[in-house]
């Protein structure tokens, strides 16, 4: 097998980027064409990612590792990309002439994240992370006609740049302590020196950059603004694919410690509880659907951290599972957001009123997705939470689990408010039926099916996640 074959998913993304770049060169805008090209390429991308799941090996002087862990995440990223592209039928939030650029930056971002999950060298990680961030920085202000997008963009950039500067500073300390930039070597060295201030400071500061991606408290400040300010599809992408990549890299970094640092665990526990609580509490008072989802994503970052801070194979596996579950549920929510706010505007929760009449299938999907986010069985969200909590409990963190469950109860409140809006409230002015095309229905139904089926039969996904997690050690 040729070495470059290991790089196929990334190469394919690169190819896609080239295509979109070409489309962007063409003068006359044609959204339909752009959409179908993107859809076609993205679907092939999923196939390519799936096909390369079994690959294993390393590239670029050991700086780049291809294993089950990375490939699983690549599949998730490709899926996320594909699903976001699926949502772009009514890409009304972005000017038509910018559609190719939109796809282009989505592609580069996906490419960067794919590289991120495979990177096992600090510089590679840094470069990949920055590439993905920069693509998003540009995507956010692409929105048309709404004053808030540029503000959101600049805030995103400023917070992001600061965080990455902090991360870089931390990386320098890691380098200083371990004398190497290769993760494989760090794994061997770091657990021995993790007690020293420099090492712990380095790791902590490094994690800041990734926490920023995942929107963990206190690096979450960009999330609500960006979710609200960016176009709906962009938000969907940020909320799903980008979070998945962040989970991957945090798992990678935390696993460096080898479970030796009580201090790091304490920090992670604190941040996790703070994220959950803050996210859930503030979400209660939100009126805007995307802003609500932003706060919910902050709290979910807390839940994922529970799995990660267990620092055990089961913990990492549960975090991987949770990331996947979160991807699916969140995309399902955004599907509804995109379809209900067809003109690309922001969606107020109150605007969901009467959804059960306007489109029963969307209402049902929304309800299931939202209950999934709340962790109600038999959805995949429950299974994810269950696994995460099991992992934490194996380490004896019962207080953490109870706090997390109480948080889940609090979160139920605002999720139910969403369901209530969709199922119970009637709009002030009678709204027309929502035209839901057949492909959309199929997409919705399949998302719902994935949520329920993998919630009820988690075995397969769980085994994959476990196998992936074993690759780390």
């Amino acid at each position, binding site marked *: 097998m040729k070495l470059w074959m290991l790089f196929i998913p990334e190469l394919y993304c690169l190819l896609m980027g080239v295509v979109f770049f070409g489309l962007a060169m063409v003068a006359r805008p044609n959204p339909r064409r752009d959409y179908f090209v993107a859809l076609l390429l993205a679907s092939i991308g999923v196939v390519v990612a799936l096909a390369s799941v079994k690959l294993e090996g390393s590239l670029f002087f050991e700086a780049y590792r291809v294993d089950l862990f990375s490939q699983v995440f690549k599949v998730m990223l490709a899926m996320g990309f594909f699903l976001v592209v699926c949502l772009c039928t009514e890409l009304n939030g972005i000017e038509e002439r910018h559609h190719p650029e939109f796809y282009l930056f989505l592609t580069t971002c996906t490419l960067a994240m794919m590289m991120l999950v495979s990177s096992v060298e600090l510089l590679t990680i840094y470069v990949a992370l920055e590439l993905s961030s920069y693509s998003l920085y540009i995507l956010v202000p692409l929105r048309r006609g709404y004053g808030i997008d540029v503000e959101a963009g*600049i*805030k995103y950039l*400023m*917070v992001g740049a*600061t965080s990455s500067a*902090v991360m870089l500073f931390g990386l320098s300390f890691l380098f200083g302590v371990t004398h190497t930039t290769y993760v494989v070597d760090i794994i061997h060295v770091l657990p021995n020196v993790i007690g020293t*201030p420099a090492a*712990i*400071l380095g790791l*902590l500061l490094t994690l*800041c950059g990734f926490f920023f991606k995942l929107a963990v*408290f*206190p*690096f979450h*400040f960009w999330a*609500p*603004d960006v979710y609200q300010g960016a176009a709906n599809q962009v938000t969907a992408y940020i909320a799903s694919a980008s979070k998945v990549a962040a989970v991957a890299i945090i798992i990678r970094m935390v696993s460096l410690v080898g479970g030796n640092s009580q*201090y790091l665990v*304490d*920090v992670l526990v*604190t*941040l996790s509880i*703070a994220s959950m609580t*803050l996210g*859930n*509490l*503030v*979400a*209660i*008072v*939100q009126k805007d659907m995307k802003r609500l989802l932003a706060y919910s994503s902050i709290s979910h970052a807390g839940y994922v951290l529970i799995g990660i801070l267990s620092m055990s194979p089961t913990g990492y596996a549960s975090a991987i599972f949770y990331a996947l579950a979160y991807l699916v549920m969140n995309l399902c929510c955004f599907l509804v957001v995109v379809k209900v706010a067809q003109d690309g505007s922001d969606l107020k929760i109150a605007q969901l009123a009467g959804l059960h009449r306007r489109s029963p299938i969307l209402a049902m999907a929304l309800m299931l997705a939202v209950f999934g986010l709340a962790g109600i069985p038999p959805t995949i969200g429950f299974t994810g939470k269950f696994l995460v909590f099991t992992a934490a409990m194996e380490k004896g963190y019962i207080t953490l689990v109870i706090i997390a469950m109480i948080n889940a109860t*609090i979160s139920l*409140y605002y999720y139910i408010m969403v369901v209530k809006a969709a199922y119970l409230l009637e709009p002030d002015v009678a709204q027309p039926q929502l035209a839901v095309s057949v492909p959309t229905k199929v997409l919705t139904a399949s998302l719902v099916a994935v949520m329920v089926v993998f919630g009820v039969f988690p075995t397969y996904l769980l085994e994959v996640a476990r196998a992936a997690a074993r690759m780390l050690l």
Partner: protein
Amino acid sequence: MTSSFFHNPTLLAAAVAALLPFFTFALIMVFTRPYPRLSAVLSIGAVSVSLICAIFLLGSHWHLEEPIQYTGKWMISGDIHIPFGFLLDQLSLLMLTIVAVISFLVQVYSLGYMAGDPGFARYYAFQSLFAWAMMTMSIAPNMLQFYIFWELVGLASYLLIGFYYEKFSASEAGKKAFVMTRFGDIAFFLGLLVVLLHFGNLNIQDMNSVDVTARMSPALITLSAILIFGGVVGKSAQFPLLTWLPDAMEGPTPVSALLHSATMVAAGVYMFGRIFPFFSNSAVAMTTFLTIGTITMLLASTMAMVTRDIKQVWAYSTISQLGFMVMGLAAGSYFAGIFHLTTHAGFKALLFLCSGVFIHEYETNDFFEIGKYGGRGLKVPIICMTLAAAALSGLPPLSGFFSKEAIMGALAEQHNPVWLWAGLLGAFLTAYYSFRLIFSILFPKKVEAVHQAEHGGHGHGHEAGHHHAGIYWVMAWPLIILATITLVLGFFHTPLENFLVGHHGGGEAHGGHHAWLLYVAVGLALSGVGLAWLEFGRKGAPQVGFVEKVEPISALFANRWYIDRFYRLFLDYFIYGTVSSLFTRNDRRVIDGGIDGMCRATVGTGWALSFLQSGMLQYNLMVMFAVLALVALYFFF
């Protein structure tokens, strides 16, 4: 087991007698409610079969040596066995017969009294239920079964007292009866539990054996006896739970007859008799009972002296007679109490049924009014009622005379003469208030023609014209039968005594020991009658009793010694006003309010935290670094 069951006529008869009314009840409730006549036929048929069985049983076991007990399992749960079966001994056979007779007569009587009532079928269903509960209770071999049917008796009387449910007072009375007797039942139940836990068995025969004293300490026996007696207090309307019974006459009059004679209230005394040996193990308890009985008897007598309601007079008289029975039993004379229960069943049913005729005829409960309308014109009822009142007063040679003498004899055996004097006073008062009523009806003040005319015009409505005669005689026959019983029952004194206590009642007190007592008692009764004659009977009598002349006492009696008022206040101020409303407020404010407050606090915290997300980028960054610094500090300290 089934085959032996059917080959044994005793068991079969007992089963049929006890269970048949239940099937009628079920049949009527489920199927025949729309057909009143059919329902009545069913019910009366069932009760007459029960009657035949009861008489057969009584007859065939007149010379019973050993009690017959048959038990089957009803429910077994772990160590708790709840059997279902029959205990046939002298007492239960007697009671069974009394219940069957009275039920039968009342049901026949009701054919006339309840004719045309919209709830006719329902009425008969409840009557059957009542009969079933009472009969099964009578022959219960085990106190748990006894308790279960005891409760059902309470239920049936609740349903019947509140039969005219549209009337507020009727439903109120039903509720009152149920809740007040429930109060006693709780004590009863607790007492049974004490026995069950410490004695391990609730079989009536075992409880009555000497084992009890061996297995339970005297204190426990006293405690459990007093608790169990609580049931008697509730059901037999003893002090302090006596006020439900006068209200219970809100039900149809035949129901009162049934309730006051053979079923509901008799159940209490019957229970006393049922486990009489158990009770007599504790002298303290017996003295308590004697006190309660005496208080009850006197209180009720005073109340009866001032009321103008014919049914209430009999209701109070029931209470006072029940007091007598309890006194007799508590004084140690098993036979006296039970004998009085038997005779009382007869004449009290008679009294109520007679009153029912008057009420049905004149549609008023006030006996002065009845007298004015010409109550004495109804020959059969007035004669029967006078007869029954005489029996109630203890005038020879009627049945009441004999039983009362037996009780007096028992009281005279007591060391403390107070009981006897109280008893004699009671006898005097009884005679006085009974004949106060009788004379008021017999010799009314000047009859005003207007009333007559008014009455004749539309007094008792539509049915008067057509069915008058038939209905009248349907109602009259049971009266005549009961009057006969009242007349002759007294002469069965000795056979009954032999039957009940003949073989093991060695140390029974006897009226004969105190010949002087007999004369004193009769004399007092006669003087009571005389006083009533002076005040109500003779020509130009003032028709105002001596008590009624003293306003405060009269008010005290008329208000039932303010016992009801006290309960009302207790309920309003303590139960509703304090406990219930405090709990409710606690529930709304503290418990529920606490939860709501927690939720509101959560939302409020969310609102407060949302200010963390200020629009100002640099504040956000500062928070970010501040937290980072804190985390780092945590590491160094």
